[in-house]
């Protein structure tokens, strides 16, 4: 009898511990990190971990308007790299990303940013046409055009997504289909394969978790 009671007690205890852990769930940090020593207001030295952040950027959007990091500053956003004439993974990525967009459409703290890697053909008016045909209107999802150098560097160094020109590839470019989740402090908090439905579902669950970190 005692045994039964104690095993029930242990079960209850572990359930409470597990569920309390879940409430405090934090998303991981990606990329490089280093320790920095800072003095707080009282002059006491403190060691802080500093994570990799997305630098300032400036591109033309689908309305040919100069758009900078100011539009995403203070927001949680999802970034990806694609091109409009891509016939392989991009349609799937954006079909899936559309479902995320629709879910967070009315949340002012969430944004979407798609960078084209086709600097030759994907001028802003091409991006505009693409966005409209995909079913996106308005500033919540930005489609950005920039020079090869600026976009490719941003992709590889900052968002950690591999992109490149490749004349042997079916459409002339190769790239990874990651949807990268960035927090309000420009740090990388997740990378989801946009061609895989289960990972996109995870992204939908992780965005509220990330938003909740800022509510405290």
């Amino acid at each position, binding site marked *: 009898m005692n045994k039964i009671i104690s095993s029930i007690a242990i079960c209850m205890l572990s359930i409470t511990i597990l569920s309390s852990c879940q409430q405090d769930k934090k998303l991981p940090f990606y990329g490089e990190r280093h320790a920095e020593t800072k003095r707080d207001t009282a002059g006491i030295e403190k060691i802080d971990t500093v994570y990799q952040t997305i630098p300032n950027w400036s591109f033309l959007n689908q309305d040919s308007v100069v758009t900078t990091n100011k539009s995403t500053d203070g927001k949680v956003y999802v970034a990806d790299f694609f091109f409009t004439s891509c016939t392989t993974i991009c*349609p799937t990525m954006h*079909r899936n990303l559309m479902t995320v967009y629709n879910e967070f459409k009315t949340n002012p703290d969430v944004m979407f940013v798609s960078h084209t890697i086709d600097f030759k053909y994907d001028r802003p008016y091409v991006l505009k046409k693409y966005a*409209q*045909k*995909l*079913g996106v209107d308005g500033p919540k999802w930005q489609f950005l055009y920039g020079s090869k150098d600026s976009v490719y560097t941003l992709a590889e160094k900052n968002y950690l997504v591999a992109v490149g020109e490749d004349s042997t590839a079916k459409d002339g470019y190769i790239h990874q289909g990651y949807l990268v989740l960035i927090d309000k402090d420009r740090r990388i908090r997740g990378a989801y394969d946009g061609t895989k439905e289960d990972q996109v579902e995870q992204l939908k669950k992780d965005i509220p978790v990330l938003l909740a970190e800022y509510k405290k």
Partner: protein
Amino acid sequence: MRKYIIHSIFLFSVIAIIVSCQNQETIDLQNYMSNGKDIYKAKCQNCHGENGEGLGQLAPPLTDSVFLIANKNRLACIIKNGVNETLVIHGKEYREKMPAFPELADIDVAQVMVYVTNSFGNKQGFVPYNQVSTQLQNCK
């Protein structure tokens, strides 16, 4: 009496032949459907969707049976060589370009075509491979 028996045997074998032919066709159809589905998933689903629903105005749905029946004889050519014209599907205009699939052999084209024309609410029935081959030789 003899005549009667011979007649009924004859009749019986005719029926048997018809039945077994139909069975062969059902078996072929099942084969085409299952291989066609694999090809569809690998090559077509990204644009046309899991249920043939299409992708916004970027790729048309494959649920317009009227269009698919009217264009029955050029579907194989569309699938193999792609298409770049204005198509009206369910009353909406589509103008994006569909890529060619030179890597698909005639049998693959036949299978994925049979899959599309017998899924998503379509019911065109079986089209054998040699018929598709002939269509592919006469693409414009």
